[in-house]
């Protein structure tokens, strides 16, 4: 991890240290990160959301309803799979996969959307807006809205609607309206900007169902708590299966929701290394990547102070990754705090390393991972080779690779160009 110069983090003092249960302070600060850098027009809605969420998470009825949905609808608990043949390539380390790819809709995203959608019902709102990059969060949101009878509008960068055409079709089939965004770089960050504009205009009856542990308070706290179930289950499962805690927990980090969820099962176990793998794209030195923590600087974006990719004028840079889900110039504020405090480590892997891991897991275990998750797998290959056969590594397999088959087929030249269409994949 890059050493941090504390002076780089202008302003808010570290006095807002996370307290019991690792919650941020009242204003949503994790150390100097987080907070609310948002238009005043949205502050009342966020106050209301924070208050309602706080009541809901302490309401046994709400918690029971969410647990029921996670079990009977999403398929929790997700299994833990030992990847022996894959582990042989990771220096012989034991590699345990937390199978979020087996959840309904194919990724960890369902944990968060079910929780927030239940909250929308509780708040008496009936319109939901969301943003999506790879489409996983959009599909999950459209799914939860269909289940709970809520109107759903999903903003998606025009570039992403093209590379994730199948997910656009899924969202539409589920009854959501997908609005392609052509402003800026036409990717995830612009979809978030557009969703924020919609929210400012329609906040009275609309909930912005943010898809990652970023944004302004209470989103980072709420999204993290809704994903904590990943880490809690994994901790029990690893103990049951190996009799000990893992040496390291690895997860991919774009905005950072799956990582923060799995990390929180182990954050109080000082012997367990928490390692977030960022999108190194074409390499950090190329400038074409999505590695906000390993290569960015502190600033404010989409409502929170955190690390981001920006130029010397504070203009937000365009991120790049072969994975649309990691193609984001910022990262959730709690990760920034975990990085500064040294509790978690962040590294970057290139597109090439991620795609090698993608292919290797497919060939050795019969599991095609999301390209996002392949970044975490690439991290495990590297770490296993460093630590050797004694190591126990837990990798959060955040999603499955169906949505990425078009990208993978082109990358590996698996089929003639004309042979790849959405229809053929069905």
């Amino acid at each position: 991890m890059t050493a941090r110069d504390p002076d780089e983090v202008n302003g808010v003092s570290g006095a807002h240290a996370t307290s019991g249960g690792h919650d941020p302070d009242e204003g949503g600060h994790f150390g100097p990160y987080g907070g609310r850098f948002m238009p005043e027009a949205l502050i009342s809605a966020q106050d209301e959301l924070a208050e309602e969420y706080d009541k809901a998470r302490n309401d046994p009825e709400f918690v029971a309803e969410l647990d029921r949905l996670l079990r009977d609808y999403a398929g929790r608990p997700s299994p833990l799979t030992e990847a022996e043949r894959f582990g042989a390539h990771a220096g012989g380390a034991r590699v345990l996969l937390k199978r979020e790819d087996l959840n309904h809709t194919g990724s960890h995203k369902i944990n968060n959307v079910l929780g927030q959608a239940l909250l929308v019902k509780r708040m008496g709102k009936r319109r939901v807006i969301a943003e999506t990059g790879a489409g996983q969060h959009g599909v999950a949101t459209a799914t939860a809205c269909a289940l709970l009878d809520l109107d759903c509008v999903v903003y998606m960068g025009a570039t992403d609607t093209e590379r994730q055409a199948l997910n656009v079709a899924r969202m539409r089939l589920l009854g959501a309206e997908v609005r392609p965004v052509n402003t800026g770089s036409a990717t995830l960050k612009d979809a978030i900007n557009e969703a924020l504009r919609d929210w400012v205009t329609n906040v009275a009856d609309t909930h912005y169902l943010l898809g990652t542990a970023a944004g302004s308070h209470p989103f980072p706290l709420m999204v993290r708590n809704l994903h904590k179930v990943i880490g809690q289950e994994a901790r029990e499962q690893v103990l049951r299966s190996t009799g000990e805690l893992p040496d390291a927990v690895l997860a991919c980090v774009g905005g950072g929701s799956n990582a923060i969820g799995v990390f929180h099962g182990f954050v109080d176990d000082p012997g367990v290394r928490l390692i977030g793998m960022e999108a190194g794209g074409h390499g950090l030195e190329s400038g074409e990547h999505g590695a906000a923590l390993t290569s960015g600087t502190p600033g404010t974006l989409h409502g929170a102070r955190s690390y981001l990719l920006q130029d010397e004028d504070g203009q937000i840079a365009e991120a790049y990754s072969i994975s649309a889900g990691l193609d984001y110039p910022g990262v959730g504020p709690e990760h920034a705090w975990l990085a500064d405090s040294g509790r978690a480590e962040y590294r970057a892997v290139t597109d090439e390393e991620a795609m090698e891991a993608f292919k290797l897991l497919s060939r050795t275990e019969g599991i095609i991972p999301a390209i996002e998750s392949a970044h975490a797998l690439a991290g495990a290959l590297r770490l296993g080779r460093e630590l050797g056969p004694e190591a126990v590594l837990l990798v959060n397999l955040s999603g499955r690779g169906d949505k990425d088959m078009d990208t993978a087929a082109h990358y590996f030249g698996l089929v003639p160009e004309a042979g790849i269409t959405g229809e053929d994949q069905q």
Partner: protein
Amino acid sequence: MSLEDVFRTCAEQRRAALIGYLPAGFPTMPESVELLEAMVRGDGATPGCDIVEVGLPYSDPVMDGPTIQAASGQALRNGFRVRRLFDAVSAVAAAGAAPVVMSYWNPIHRYGPDAFAEDLRAAGGFGLITPDLIPEEAGEWSAASNRHGLDRIFLVAPSSSERRLALTAEAGSGFLYAASVMGVTGARDSVSGSARELVRRTREHTSLPIGVGLGVRNAEHAAEVGEFADGVIVGSAFITRAEREGATGVGAFAGELARGLRAEPASTVDR
């Protein structure tokens, strides 16, 4: 001179202050200086803006509608850099209006709030409007603006609670920016009824002047808002005129708006 003086002078003339917005560097740096000067000069018959908001073009302007976002994007593509902002501010001051800057927080955080305040003051700037910086997060800016004698102009919105109106009024200085509608910037066909109500509610918490923005499109709107607000803020409509008719059109439009504010009000409303 201070923002307070500007509002006092306008009040003595029994009219609201005209506040115009244009991004620096739009469409290019030299042209933006001409447009800003024209905005102050007016049309020859009537002087234009009393206060000019010089926008700092930003890559991710969440509070702005398509018109301002496109103009800011054009400025950035044409090579706008933050340090050039101060040239635009100086030009406005030299033309005789009170310059303030409107900017999202990240570029200022990156520049260094204290250095930004120092350079803004040195260029003749009076204050800063921060669409995504609320008083609770403004500690650094409060310190820097105090040190350099700049005003802090925060926004209030129709959704602001009484508690937040009081808190924002207490933290702000110069004037308060009342976002008249729930939404982003952009000219609209009519002035929202929520603007009048927001101004009324805000006045109960402060004696600061109140400027109303978001949606003012023409002289008629300006006159209507001028009946109940201390300042009328016009942005997107200036950009549209600049795109169509350049500096001449901007000067003419500023004159039209200013005449609208100088006309006898249709009804007498206590300010």
